[in-house]
């Protein structure tokens, strides 16, 4: 059962009607509804196509946050073999909002790290809705450091509303942990590839995504602040998130134009949550292709290229 977003309401009605017809036919085998149901299916498909062909920035935020969107765990399960999770920051705790470990992709040994939001109430609470505490960033730093020592490429999957705003998180140095994680990303002498698979929430995302290549799933978003947060500060009204989402230019297309995103990974019709397998396969292909672009470069070159990329950011804006 699909969970519909508010703007998908007309779609829900059509798909609901088709489903009702078919359910009736199952109970009354003498009824022939297939023609009518098929017409509804076509109508739904057309509507889906038009809705998703032109998503506003705010709708993209909603799609990026869709609870059924594939999460880090789904990508790791499907794309990587021999995944061996590694835990803990060796200091305080193991933060389950960040998962990571050794694995192979297409036979290549790598380190994979990502934010995991969880997929039901229990796991969402366990994973803290993908909002990392300092321990999460410090675990990531440790894993990146390990990969660097053994020459393994690092792949990060970004999907977080942002770093966790908590008392303990502040006391244990949330900002320092994020700063050090970003610093580690920029120090690595191995390829670092990031894919924003859902939400790229501010500093919490930067800490993983200061990479040689940053790819974004078509409907994912990456922003300095949530549209709601921006609206409440600049519009003094959190309900103005549609306007702020538009103004923030947080879509994959905008980020590609601004030079922050290197590659947009197309999503299946109706978003990754409608066809997770296709979305996951596309992400896998993009990761392998980016790995191949970087694999033969020396460590010094990888680090220098990464730095130059970020130093040059901001030399161009959006076209007038």
């Amino acid at each position: 059962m699909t969970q519909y977003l508010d703007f998908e309401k007309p779609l829900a009605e059509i798909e609901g009607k088709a489903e009702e017809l078919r359910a009736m036919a199952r109970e009354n085998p003498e009824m022939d509804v297939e023609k009518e149901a098929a017409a509804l299916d076509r109508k739904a498909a057309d509507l889906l196509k038009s809705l998703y062909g032109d998503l506003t920035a705010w709708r993209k935020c909603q799609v990026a946050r869709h609870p059924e969107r594939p999460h880090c765990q789904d990508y790791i399960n499907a794309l990587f073999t021999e995944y061996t999770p590694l835990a803990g920051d060796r200091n305080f705790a193991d933060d389950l909002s960040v998962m990571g470990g050794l694995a192979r992709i297409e036979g290549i040994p790598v380190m994979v790290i990502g934010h995991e939001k969880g997929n039901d109430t229990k796991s969402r609470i366990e994973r803290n809705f993908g909002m990392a505490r300092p321990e999460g960033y410090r675990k990531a730093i440790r894993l990146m450091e390990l990969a660097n020592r053994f020459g393994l490429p690092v792949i990060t999957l970004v999907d977080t509303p942002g770093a966790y705003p908590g008392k303990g998180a502040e006391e244990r140095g949330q900002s320092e942990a994020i700063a050090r994680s970003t610093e580690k990303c920029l120090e690595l002498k191995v390829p670092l590839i990031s894919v924003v698979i859902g939400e790229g929430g501010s500093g919490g995302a930067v800490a993983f995504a200061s990479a040689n290549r940053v790819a974004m799933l078509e409907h994912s978003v990456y922003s300095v602040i949530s549209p709601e947060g921006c609206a409440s500060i600049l519009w003094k009204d959190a309900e103005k998130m549609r306007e702020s989402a538009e103004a923030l230019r947080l879509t994959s297309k905008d980020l590609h134009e601004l030079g922050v995103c290197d590659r947009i990974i197309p999503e299946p019709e109706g978003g990754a949550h409608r066809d997770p397998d296709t979305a996951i396969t596309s992400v896998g292909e993009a990761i392998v292709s980016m790995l191949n672009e970087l694999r033969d470069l020396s460590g010094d070159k990888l680090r220098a290229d990464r730095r130059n990329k970020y130093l040059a950011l901001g030399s161009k804006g959006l076209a007038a």
Partner: protein
Amino acid sequence: MNWITNYVRPTINSLFSRREVPDNLWTKCDDCGTMLFHRELADNLNVCTNCDHHMAIGARDRLKSIFDGGVFVEVAVPEPVADPLHFRDQKRYTDRIKEARKKTGEKDAMLVAEGEMGRTPVVVAVQDFSFMGGSMSMYVGNAIVAAAERAIALKRPLILFSAAGGARMQEGILGLMQMPRTTIAVQMLKEAGLPYIVVLTHPTTGGVTASYAMLGDVQIAEPNALIGFAGARVIEQTIGEKLPEGFQRAEYLLDHGMLDRVTMRTALKDELVTIVRLLMKQDAPVKGDLPAPEITSEATLQLEDPIVPDDAK
């Protein structure tokens, strides 16, 4: 990545630009309410002489308080693309910038200068909270990169005074990208073997603390400065409880191991001189108020017509 190519001949600043302070005016301390003589307060670097409360100090006044005789040379900062996102909320970003420039007389939220501090050559960057909340813009990123490049070219330490609410929302993702960008500037300094000292001033939060402001070799904060990642209100809403007294204040961070020192503004210059000279293996410092340097250093040699303030002659 050579920002030096954008280097423009520096301009001189001096105490001449200090606004004339009328002797007959008083300021009320924000904290204890004591009425303080303007002149007395300015001489004490805007620290209340009664209760030691640290009031805001302007970015230029900060530079004057750090450099010998108040003399420094400004380091030019390359101009970024203006209004890269064509951002508009209730106001246009371009209008907000215009207003901030008019109000502060500054280009953006960061000043960079070079000069001598206790006869120790340094580069100093000061974030200007009065300019759009000190927010981290592409200009601020350019300023920090320029400061690091200049420090490396002159083989000097970089001292940075932070004050900001975070990244500038009106520059969207490009504001956010100043986090990795400024982190690279810090890495370049470290690789050049030069000290990078951060002085966190009230308030420093958000993406600024989560990048260059927390990456100093030595981390100092002014007393009672608010320092944190998330805002206290957001935290209270998230965890559903009241935060303890002094939460996210300098002394609280010191207690939690997040800072090296909390130092009074009036003692900062001497302390910075000591730390920098120890790290640079230089002789023990000359302390106290020093006149402007002789016109022999590399920085001042570039000046055609150096201006020395009256009280340094």
